[in-house]
């Protein structure tokens, strides 16, 4: 299945209507409404470097481990955020926090892999990232642009793993710039002429190769790439189409623009957008650097929730804010915090997730063990379930090994 071309997934109700069984569709829909409609897409706010939980979503003001960091109250009683989250604090009724996330990987690359795929690195199989699974398992509709996008990708953008390179995230940079490689370097006439000439060359190579050539998929991929180049949907990348006021709300930063572009992309059928905010690897001057990053994250995250709410799509969209690990409770001699995979925090909103909820509790003394630990794979199972994807479904990896989409169990409390 290709991410761009599968138009054959007729929505169930249309299919039944087409078959003259509209009443059955309505009946089915009614029965489904007693459950929840699953979310349709995911935005991952990727905090590259590993953000300090203590200066973001799990402040511990007044304790030894706070190292002087302050907190602020939020719209949800009893839930505090780090002092810098002035705007997100007002949206807290939409945001759930998992304060007992646990992982085993304290290396950037391995930690990133673990958080993006829900599995530890394993030499026998390359696990797919959350976004790749969403693109693979959910229908493609009429989307002509890649449905898995990574904006401002860091060193290790999300990949397709065993699902194939066609599920790798499409990399793009600051939405203020042009989308890379989608505009020909020559005039439209000259480009059209080139494409015509290409047929002559393809015909010559096809001779004597027949169906072998079709199996290469080259022409097909070429056509899909060209469809993307001429697609109206490309405009979704262009945030300048939004009002100046809204752009200001998201913040005049590449990350803020990335979040706004993410919302626009979902509207044309993109399933997963990863937007990266790097700079959280705060081995020195932790407080100062975190404050700088929070000043970028806070307006963008809050504006994204408000904006999705305004478009009535927050219920269809999961927004997940995570990094590869947390940081040590003890502040080191140069004012930094080091890698700490034992216990850190994820923020998650929308898509049927119960906002205002806090799962788990970290140790105020800075111990490794949280209350009600949530292993990374459980967070993944939760997101997959919210998307209506059977997280227990298995895929066949190389050498016959089967793997589950997620080896974890959904966190019931989050799904409400």
């Amino acid at each position, binding site marked *: 299945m290709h991410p761009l071309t599968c138009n054959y997934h007729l929505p169930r109700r249309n299919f039944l209507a087409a078959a003259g069984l509209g009443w059955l569709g309505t009946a089915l829909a009614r029965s489904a409404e007693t459950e929840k409609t699953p979310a349709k897409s995911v935005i991952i706010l990727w905090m590259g470097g590993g953000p300090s939980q203590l200066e973001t979503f799990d402040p511990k003001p007044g304790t030894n481990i706070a190292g002087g960091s302050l907190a602020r109250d939020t719209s949800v009683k009893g839930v505090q955020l780090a002092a810098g989250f002035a705007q997100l604090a007002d949206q807290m009724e939409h945001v759930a926090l998992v304060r007992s996330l646990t992982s085993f990987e304290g290396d950037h690359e391995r930690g990133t892999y673990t958080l993006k795929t829900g599995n530890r690195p394993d030499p026998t199989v390359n696990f797919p990232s959350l976004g790749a699974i969403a693109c693979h398992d959910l229908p493609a509709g009429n989307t002509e642009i890649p449905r898995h996008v990574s904006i401002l990708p860091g060193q290790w953008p999300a990949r397709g793993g065993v699902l194939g390179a066609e599920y790798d995230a499409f990399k793009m940079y600051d939405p203020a710039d042009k989308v890379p490689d989608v505009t020909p370097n020559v005039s439209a006439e000259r480009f059209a002429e080139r494409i015509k000439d290409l047929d002559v060359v393809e015909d010559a*190579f096809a001779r004597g190769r027949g169906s072998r050539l079709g199996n290469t998929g080259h022409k097909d991929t070429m056509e899909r790439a060209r469809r993307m180049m001429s697609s109206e949907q490309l405009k979704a990348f262009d945030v300048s189409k939004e009002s100046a006021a809204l752009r200001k709300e998201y913040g005049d930063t590449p990350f803020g623009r990335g979040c706004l572009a993410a919302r626009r992309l979902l509207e044309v059928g993109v399933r997963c957008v990863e937007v990266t905010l790097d700079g959280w690897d705060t081995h020195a001057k932790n407080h100062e650097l975190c404050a700088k990053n929070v000043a970028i994250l806070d307006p963008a995250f809050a504006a994204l929730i408000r904006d999705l709410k305004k478009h009535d799509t927050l219920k269809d969209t999961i927004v997940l804010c995570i990094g590869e690990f947390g940081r040590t409770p003890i502040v080191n001699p140069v004012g930094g915090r080091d890698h700490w995979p034992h216990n850190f925090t994820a923020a998650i909103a929308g898509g049927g997730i119960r906002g205002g909820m806090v799962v788990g509790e970290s140790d105020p003394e800075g111990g490794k063990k949280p209350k009600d630990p949530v292993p990374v794979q459980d967070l993944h199972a939760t997101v997959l379930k919210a998307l209506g994807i059977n997280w227990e479904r298995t895929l066949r990896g190389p*050498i016959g090994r089967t793997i589950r989409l997620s080896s974890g169990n959904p966190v019931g409390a989050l799904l409400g």
Partner: protein
Amino acid sequence: MLVRNLLFVVVVIAAVGGLRASLFPQNTQTRKIHLDPGTTTDDDFRAVVRKVDESFRNDWEAHGITPAPLAPDLAVARRLSLALTGSVPSLEEIRQFEHYPEGQRLDGWANHLLRDRRYSDYFADRLARAYVGTEDGPLLIYRKRRFNAWLSDQLHHNTPYGEMVRQMIAARGLNTDQPAVNFIAAAYDEGKEKPDPEKLAIRVTRAFLGLRIDCAQCHDFKNPADYEQIIWKQTDFQSLAAFFGQTRHIVTHISDGEGEYAFEDRVNGSTHEIGVGVPFSPELMPEEGTRRERLAAWVTNPQNKAFSRATVNRVWAMMFGRPLLKRIESPTLDERGPAALDILAADFASHNYDLNRLILLIASTEVFRLDSAAPFEITDAHDERWAAFPLSRLRPEQIIGSVIQAASVRTIDKNSQLFVRATRFFNEKDFVTRYGDADDDDFAKAHGTIPQRLLMMNGDLVDGKARSELLNASAQIAMFAPDDQAAVETAYLCVFTRKPTLKESEHFVAKLAGTKGDERRNHLADMYWVLFNSTEMSFNH
């Protein structure tokens, strides 16, 4: 000042003259290549080739398959260049190749490439990727460039392959002084502060024995089809890891210490001490030496068929774009494949693991020289039984290597200008990052991606090469080709290593007819773009 200006004019005139000479000359004496068939005419060499050819013919006959006809010499020359140097041949080389008589020039061509540093550098990169992956590894602890340069030197001098592998597994010393130790250094684990024995057990079995026994790292590896059957026990894996249990890494120095190896039972949460042991053919392991020396001797023992079979299978895959067995790494030793595997493996082991000989043997087989097209429908059975040359996707470094080579009429090698080489290096690195990378095993089979096609169509790297800049072949052809037909033919030779068909020639000649200056240069740039974006360019065929 006047002297310098004059000198500049002289240099420009000489350069333009040189360019013209390399494009349409038939008799330049500089940079001459020699195509001598070397050992490929020896009786014992021909006997092995015959044996391999017969084994395939018997198989085709038994299955009622007619093989594809032989491919044109230039098509085979392209395959060899791509496999051994990572790019298509240069126009400079093609012109000289065409001057040699048909028949023996392909044997000479393979020999010519094996002597070239482009071969040892490229093959070293490919092998290093198979041994230790593409990561840059921990800074200072692992010296990637030293390791690759060492591999390249060994290949250039045709060091017996068994000896190379022995050094990688067993060598001791500084990672700068004894570059082979970087195979061990690359497995350094920051948590354990030493090379990770489990990672090394995985790398040794995969890279040198073509075996994937990684599942047994944590538990007994059962047959997925029959859970009663244990293929590899966890102790098979862990006693192999134990060979690296005494390996130490202090700053930049790899040595062997003492102490027993203990592994972590990830299922039950305890640790167990375990001694060394090999998973099969224990009689081939010597009693003497350090643990790593004993393992190295066992792996490279000429009786250890897994080693020679794995090497033949890998080298075959590097040359055909597809391994002789179904995979480069298999979970068991008894994977069945064409008879050629054991014929070539036996020859490889009995000739002291002579890699050059193995490459020349594979290049001389009939199956390597078959066409990828036929006057009849090529079926899956043809594909499966090697009765037609496989179509496989080129790796990213082969694509960009070819783009860069095709955009220059002269061979880009160690003798090229520093500027040209530097451009090549950075273009290549950047392109490979953006094009995406993958393991040898799944790359050739995988479909291309949309970002790859976008990058080829619209990216600066590629269109920059097709655009009419002074240094590029398209512009040079526009300036110097004596007529339109020669211009089209030259572009085809540069990119496709073949001449255009009549229809192609007529089509493009008509476009060039009567054009000059910028318009002509643009037409040639367009033509280059078209060739670069074709299936033919992106595939080994």
